[in-house]
């Protein structure tokens, strides 16, 4: 079932929380990570609630509420979210208190807010939504699963669905992954560096939420036509086959795809399939990247989806994301992402 994108909200390492602009200037990050530019939370939450919320809860709930406000919808029927790592900061906080404690009773606050469904639950509480509430936590399929869930929900009759994803950089997990040599220095975040590739990724984080509905109305951003996941393909030939089948199922020829938003993250090993697929299938499409803007994280495709929605709405492909072939107007956009063995496709089109 096709879903109309009725509202968007995105907090990321770029200035994206303001829906009235579209990547006005690119913030460059020189280090191994990029962290969110957070909005002023005062319009979203009262001081009491703010004190209790961890950083990811704040920026994710703010992104969700931005999407809700943007859509003009007051009552949600369902909430479905994805998160790769869940609430790392709160988990680490509780682990730290466990490490320091010797038999004493620990404070449960961090534990309570460490469950993966904390954000989905918080949004349900704020919006008073008693409907379906799901949280997927599966690496590079977390946001993708939430989108599949949203499409099923719409087919089952839910009118307005909030779908989104969130992941945060936390101090200890970052330090550990750094010791495991997961990261590289992001010298100037130039697109060419991402194409050329080296070892390691630049860590990112963010939250992006969308109001989706099977019903069209004025001012929709665009349409999610379909999305799919495929775990652990054996070869690029098999990836090509999956992409062909996916487009065929949706009655779209490869030549109809104008823009491919590619999940290339600049790590040579991670990007092998993306490069080969670009070469094999997308010689004539505009190839756009996004991880130089938001960094790599398990739910980075939610930023890619935000980028696609913005492109469809404005009918512009910003210079800052184009890797090659700048000539095509965005009518059909295909997002192809690879996270380790998790491959995903999202097909969007203009209204």
């Amino acid at each position, binding site marked *: 079932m096709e879903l109309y994108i009725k509202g968007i909200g995105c907090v990321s390492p770029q200035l994206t929380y303001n829906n009235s602009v579209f990547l006005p200037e690119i913030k460059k990050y020189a280090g191994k990570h990029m962290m969110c530019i957070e909005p002023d939370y005062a319009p979203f939450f009262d001081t009491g609630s703010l004190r209790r919320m961890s950083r990811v809860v704040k920026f994710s709930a703010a992104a969700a509420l931005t999407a809700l406000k943007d859509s003009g919808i007051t009552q949600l029927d369902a909430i479905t979210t994805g998160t790769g790592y869940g609430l790392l900061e709160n988990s680490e906080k509780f682990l730290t208190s466990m*490490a320091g404690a010797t038999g004493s009773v*620990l404070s449960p606050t961090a534990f309570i807010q460490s469950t993966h469904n904390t954000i989905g639950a918080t949004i349900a*509480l704020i919006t008073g939504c008693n409907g379906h*509430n799901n949280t997927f*936590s*599966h690496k*590079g399929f977390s946001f993708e699963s939430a989108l599949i869930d949203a499409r099923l929900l719409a087919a089952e009759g839910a009118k307005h669905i909030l779908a989104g994803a969130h992941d945060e950089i936390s101090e200890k997990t970052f330090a550990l992954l750094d010791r495991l040599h997961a990261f590289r220095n992001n010298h100037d975040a130039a697109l060419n560096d991402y194409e050329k590739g080296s070892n390691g990724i630049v860590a990112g984080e963010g939250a992006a939420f969308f109001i989706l509905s099977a019903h069209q109305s004025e001012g929709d951003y665009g349409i999610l036509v379909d999305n799919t*996941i495929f*775990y652990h393909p054996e070869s690029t030939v098999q990836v090509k086959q999956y992409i062909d089948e996916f487009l065929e199922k949706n009655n779209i020829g490869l030549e109809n795809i104008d823009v491919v938003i590619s999940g290339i993250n600049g790590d040579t090993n991670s990007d092998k399939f993306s490069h080969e697929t670009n070469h094999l299938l997308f010689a004539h499409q505009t190839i756009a990247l996004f991880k130089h803007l938001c960094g790599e994280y398990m739910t980075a495709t939610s930023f890619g989806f935000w980028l696609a929605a913005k492109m469809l709405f404005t009918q512009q492909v910003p210079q800052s994301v184009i890797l090659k072939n700048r000539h095509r107007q965005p009518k059909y956009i295909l997002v192809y992402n690879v996270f380790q063995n998790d491959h995903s496709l999202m097909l969007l089109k203009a209204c």
Partner: protein
Amino acid sequence: MEVYIAGKGIISAIGLNVGETLHALKAGISGIGTQTNLLNRHDNNLPTGEINLSNAQLAAMGGLNADYSRTALLSIIAAKEAVANACINLKDFRTGFISATTVGGMDKTENFMTAFIRDGELKNIDQVLYHDSGAITELVAEQLGIRNFVSTISTACSSSANAIMYASRLIKTGVLDVAIAGGTDAMSLFTLSGFNALMILDEHLCTPYDDNRKGLNLGEGAGYIVLVSEKVAAGLNRKPTVKLAGYANANDAFHQTASSPEGKGNCLAMQGALKMSGLAPQQIDYINLHGTGTSNNDLSEGMAIQRIFGEHVPDSSSTKTYTGHTLGACGGIEAIFSILAIEEKLIFPNLRLKTPMKELNFVPVTELKEGVEVKHVLSNSFGFGGNCSSLIFSKVN
């Protein structure tokens, strides 16, 4: 479009497979006891429902590396049993693996992290590699030979009920033909300390639905069922006898950890499942309660049941009196108990119940009932964050 149950696999404190589990359920043998090899470091010797096998023993059983998280080791054992029980060649169909977990690889991470936080100790850093929930699912999917469709749900204690629901919806819409769905959670100090901090752990064996209940006992385990489409079911040699007739997911939207006193979310989940199944409340023969044993859960759930079923509440019991609360796995484990109730014509007792709750007009079953015609079972799973899910399993006519 019906979705049938073609196989089941389970491991918990009361048995390493379906046969052992059924034996313990019938004999009224609880698996909750003092902590064994895993958690003897913990200061409070709280009773838990642990599986009395080391990681090395579990790894040998499941054919997985013993260094992996216990959550993955439990998962592979139950998932393999479910697949073998279904007698389906997974490669012949579009097969998905939909798992659920709350703790993921935390049992390994906490081991490493507490040492790292205390002394900056970096030895065994590779223990954090499979920390996230999805990593656990993928370790098991690889072992099962499942490619293509995998996913993981983490909605606290309703996780695996939601995984079963998601699997069914994917089959109904033709995305999948076959799905192995359920969940897994291993005992960890993280969850034990967390629930202890919340002061909802009973220092003695838990007594759900008792007026003097003091809290829950944590357990561990995994439970998976193999769901198949009508078309797949028609081609099976052994025809499925149970189907998933209804389900619903609702949110209480009341509090992060507590249920609303009237059990709004619980009520919505049960009503939604009933509506989908087309059954009237009085057609339900048995309710497998969420029944954790906390003051709050049992009251909210009980009030919601009373509201829906009125004067005629069917037989009910909390099988967490056997297994402890297995968190993200309980929806999968209790789905299997529900299916066994139908297949074996049994109603399992709510162990250790002495003084019925004074707020309720019904009392869970306290003795095993045998030879009962059980056609429809309602299974409840409610969790932190107001996540409430109910499943209905029905006998195939």
